[in-house]
């Protein structure tokens, strides 16, 4: 752990694979910028890789004041032991007060390893971050300007605000898609700090034999309108109605975990705690009971229409439009209504 250091910077881990930056560092940059401005400290991105110079400008455009660049041939591919070692050393050298990671499979593999090595706290899957004060009830001592790490817990049934006031840095992973992507400013420049890396083959625990990364076929996060179906849709064939409604609205089809597990639609379409978190303008939930895990991924939608034949379905509690009825009748009528209006 490092000492409490209120002059420390705010850091964002700039996850990249094969020279392509992920979306999450950019999403984190908007929140990081806000936190750094409140704390009046610089915002820095930390990038590890083999040759990543080209991505530095992009980090600057999205709000970084500084980019710590750790380049080494052995950092070409991400793996937990080597990356954690480098980040651990950088934290000890520069003593940032906050370090943020995307809650991607990579971020969730890396951040706990770093936290354990640094002996610092880590909060997983935050959905919001704020700066605030904390008073210790017993002693009355007030800690100012701490990072409030806000996350759902207990299957999304409670929202916990976590802090760490004595063992720094304050670290968190942040859910993908919950922070809005900032508008890039192509005039912004960042100071680049090249870090010397000493790694040997022994620091690489894994041999990466093969890898396949697909572009996601559907981009739920970018969709203004999502039409999602649950187990209540009944079959893969019947799910065609969900696709049809989505198409005539110019939206994307989504699904609950149950619908995906039943084989109605591919996992790329899954919305919820274990799928994608979305915040569209309109979310239409058809045949979805509204398990808390699903709600965790869509309750921030601006408008929610719920279609269900069960009057007690929890989804109705968060819906703006409640349609109690059979989706097989309601969905075709909605399609008709939209086609006639448009």
């Amino acid at each position, binding site marked *: *752990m490092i000492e409490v250091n209120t002059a420390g910077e705010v850091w964002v881990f700039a996850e990249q694979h094969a020279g392509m930056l992920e979306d999450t560092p950019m999403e984190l940059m908007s929140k990081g910028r806000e936190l750094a401005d409140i704390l009046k400290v610089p915002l820095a991105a930390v990038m590890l890789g083999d040759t990543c110079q080209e991505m530095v400008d992009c980090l600057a455009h999205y709000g970084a004041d500084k980019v710590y660049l750790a380049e080494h041939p052995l950092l070409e591919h991400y793996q*937990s032991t080597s990356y*954690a070692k480098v980040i651990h050393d950088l934290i000890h050298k520069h003593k940032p007060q906050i370090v943020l990671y995307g809650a*991607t499979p990579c971020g*969730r*593999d890396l951040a*706990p*390893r770093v*936290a*354990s*090595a640094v*002996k610092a*706290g*880590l909060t*997983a899957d935050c959905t919001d971050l704020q700066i605030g004060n*904390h008073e210790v009830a017993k002693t009355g001592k007030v800690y100012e300007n701490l990072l*409030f790490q806000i996350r*759902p*817990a*207990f*299957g*999304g*049934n*409670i*929202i*916990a*605000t976590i802090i*760490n006031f004595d*063992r720094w840095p304050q670290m968190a992973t942040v859910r993908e898609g919950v922070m809005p992507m900032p508008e890039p400013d192509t005039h912004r420049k960042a100071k680049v700090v090249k870090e010397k890396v000493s790694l040997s083959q022994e620091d690489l*625990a894994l*041999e*990466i*034999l093969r*890898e*396949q*990364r*697909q*572009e996601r076929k559907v981009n739920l996060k970018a969709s203004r309108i999502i039409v999602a179906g649950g187990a209540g849709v009944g079959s893969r064939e019947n799910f065609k109605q969900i696709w049809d409604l989505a198409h005539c609205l110019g939206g994307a089809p989504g699904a609950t975990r149950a619908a995906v597990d039943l084989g109605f639609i591919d996992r790329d379409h899954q919305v919820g705690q274990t799928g994608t978190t979305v915040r569209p303008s*309109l979310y239409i939930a058809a045949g979805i009971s509204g*398990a*808390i895990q699903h*709600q965790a991924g869509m309750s921030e939608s601006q408008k929610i*229409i719920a279609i269900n034949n069960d009057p*007690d379905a*929890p989804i*109705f*509690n*968060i*819906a703006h*439009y*409640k*349609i109690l009825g*059979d989706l097989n009748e*309601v969905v075709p*009528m*909605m399609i008709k*209504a*939209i086609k*006639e*209006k448009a």
Partner: protein
Amino acid sequence: MSYKCVVLVKQVPDTKRITGQAMNADGTVNRAALPAIFNPEDLNALELALQIKDRFGGHVTVMTMGLPAASEVLRQALYRGADEAILITDRRCAASDTLATSYILSCAVRKRDYDIVLCGRQAIDGDTAQVGPQAAEKLGIAQITYVQELLDLEGDRITARRNIGNGWQEVRAKLPILLTVIDEANEPRVASARRLMKYKKARTPAELADKADAKALEEKGLLIQQWDLDFLEADLKWCGRDGSPTKVHRIQSVVLTAKETKNVEPTQPALNAMVHELIVDHTIG
């Protein structure tokens, strides 16, 4: 070559079972209505360990940290085929965050010879996925997280396929290693009737009203081992509240209600009116 596996498991409230019945009138969750279960992905981790034993031979030890009631998941592990079960229980473990928990578990794992440590990717009560990688770091071993398939185990080399979100990756590593296992990895076996009959009487000392019963159970091989922090020789500075850098500032119950709900009849005129409203307020169109 046979392999010694240690599986780290957790008893959790069944947060997936939250339906209308488990909700209070104010929209919060009635936790008492939720049963305590074996964390689902820890069952996948146990299954993988048992498959390794079935295929290559070896030994499967299951460990859990928790209150004495958590012994129930240890019995369930014994019913499924675990060779040994250990409860780590101590009041001084209370309020441990993931860092302190991983430290305590790593102290327990060190008490055993092991080749492979397995755990579920994450527990459904906290969903942090942190204890696995942190325990690996504390043990000074490498980790393969999000394991969806064990491809090969030969000598001291393991090959596994891991899920990386938008794809997969096949990796090879040297033992000892820690694996975190996801639900796609396998279909956990059910309890064996014969083992259930045998182990349903298995108890930890903490569950026995009369300590004299321990001796009789031990003779029958039905005494579940129970370790405390003294036995683990854990440094108390890294355990429980003191060992936990993260503290709770505030907890809020989620009350899931829309500000304003409109009932729409499932009829064409009512749906036309709704669509019209959405076009007027620029939600669609």
